């Protein structure tokens, strides 16, 4: 392949594939992430439970999903788990989103567990001594404080998930990397499509990083509202 003879026209010809790829990648990331936070919340709290029948399933779940490669999980879910449960595939998007969600949930569980554990015991005790049942104390007192400490690691997790979503390309999901693979296969040229894919991912991670930095700033330091800035201001402010 001649290094100097760069043909980005072939990217242009397939631009729709790339545009769809960006949407699929974003969709998988967002669904996997939001689902992963909800799942992680339950798993994380489960790992804090004193009841063994809650604790152990949560622990083994987290250990399994953190102990095996995401790629294996994607293949298992797409080719074995979903067909076994539903009798047929539900398509790459469902499989991909499910695998990312289940995986992300395991990582988020550890973040959420650590965040909850980082809140001083006195906060729970104060809440309980005011007569709050533990669920009420968790929801109103512990989680709002713990959430702040979770923001930075949850931000990292989002970036990681964005990049990991590229693995769904192995189950023929029409994500961003898949677009690159199709072009590479069609023209037997590799620099242009993969560099394009890399740049598009870089742009996505850049945007995500900026958003996360904003959110982190918003939730840093002080709880005093006057010291906080608004992230997005619409109209006059």
């Amino acid at each position, binding site marked *: 392949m001649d290094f100097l003879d760069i043909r980005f026209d072939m990217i242009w010809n397939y631009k729709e594939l790339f545009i769809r790829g960006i949407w699929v990648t974003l969709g998988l990331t967002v669904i996997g992430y939001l689902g992963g936070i909800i799942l992680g919340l339950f798993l994380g709290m489960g790992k804090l439970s004193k009841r063994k029948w809650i604790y152990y399933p949560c622990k083994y779940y987290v250990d399994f999903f953190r102990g095996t490669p995401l790629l294996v999980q994607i293949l298992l879910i797409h080719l074995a788990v979903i067909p076994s449960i539903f009798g047929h595939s539900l398509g790459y998007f469902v499989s991909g989103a499910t695998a990312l969600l289940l995986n992300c949930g395991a990582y988020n569980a550890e973040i959420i567990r650590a965040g909850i554990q980082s809140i001083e015991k006195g906060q729970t005790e104060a809440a309980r001594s005011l007569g709050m049942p533990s669920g*009420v104390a968790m929801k109103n007192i512990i989680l709002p*404080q713990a959430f702040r400490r979770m923001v930075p690691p949850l931000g990292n997790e989002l970036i990681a998930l964005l990049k990991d979503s590229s693995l769904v390309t192995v189950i023929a999901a029409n994500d961003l990397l898949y677009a690159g693979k199709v072009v590479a296969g069609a023209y037997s040229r590799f620099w242009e499509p993969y560099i394009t894919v890399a740049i598009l991912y870089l742009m996505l991670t850049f945007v995500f990083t900026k958003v996360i930095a904003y959110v982190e700033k918003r939730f840093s330091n002080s709880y005093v509202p006057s010291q906080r800035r608004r992230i997005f201001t619409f109209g006059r402010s």
Partner: protein
Amino acid sequence: MIKIEGLHKSFGQLEVLKGIDYEVKEKEIICVIGPSGSGKSTFLRCINLLEDITDGAVFINGLKVNDSGTNINEIRKDVGMVFQQFNLFPHMNVLNNITISPRKIRKMNPKEAEQLAVELLEKVGLADKAKSFPEQLSGGQMQRVAIARALAMQPKIMLFDEPTSALDPEMVKEVLDVMKQLAFEGMTMVVVTHEMGFAKEMGDRVLFMDEGKLVEEGTPDAIFNNSTNERTKAFLSMVL
């Protein structure tokens, strides 16, 4: 009002409370003194079940606290607690710190809860701090908010665990003054304290604890001036 029978508490192998019997009557001010590690905090925390009770029983208003049939959250509504480290909720302003449990637990409507909070803040001398956040307050102010927060549940009993020992000396008085006012209003109180002045002045009874046991109890005069117990005398000679 509070009845404690044969209270034992162990942390693993370590026996911290070794059989305590006591009865607190309505409107009494009980001051608990004793050396560090003697189990004073543990004693207080067993009363509202912040620590599981290993053996024995605690009754509040005739209800057994450590009974699986008892709804501990119901009992805790009647028992306010104030901690050494204040334990205000840092993510809520003073008003919300005070109103959160009336709203969530007593299902008070927000307007009513706010009015109650404003009254309580006036009582503790912090009417102007309703919108402040804990991090904007001094230690003494935080502790007074903590007292107001506990009062917002309209408890019949208040437990204090060394409420002034995390405070700079110039802030101790403002907190003790609030506690005195509460005492005058007839609140039943159990106060673990190192402030012997407060115990002498306000205590109806003084309990001296050592090594997990209730060594001596009596009026402040009996304990501080006329004790014949060697351990009590040794302790008092150190702290007075």
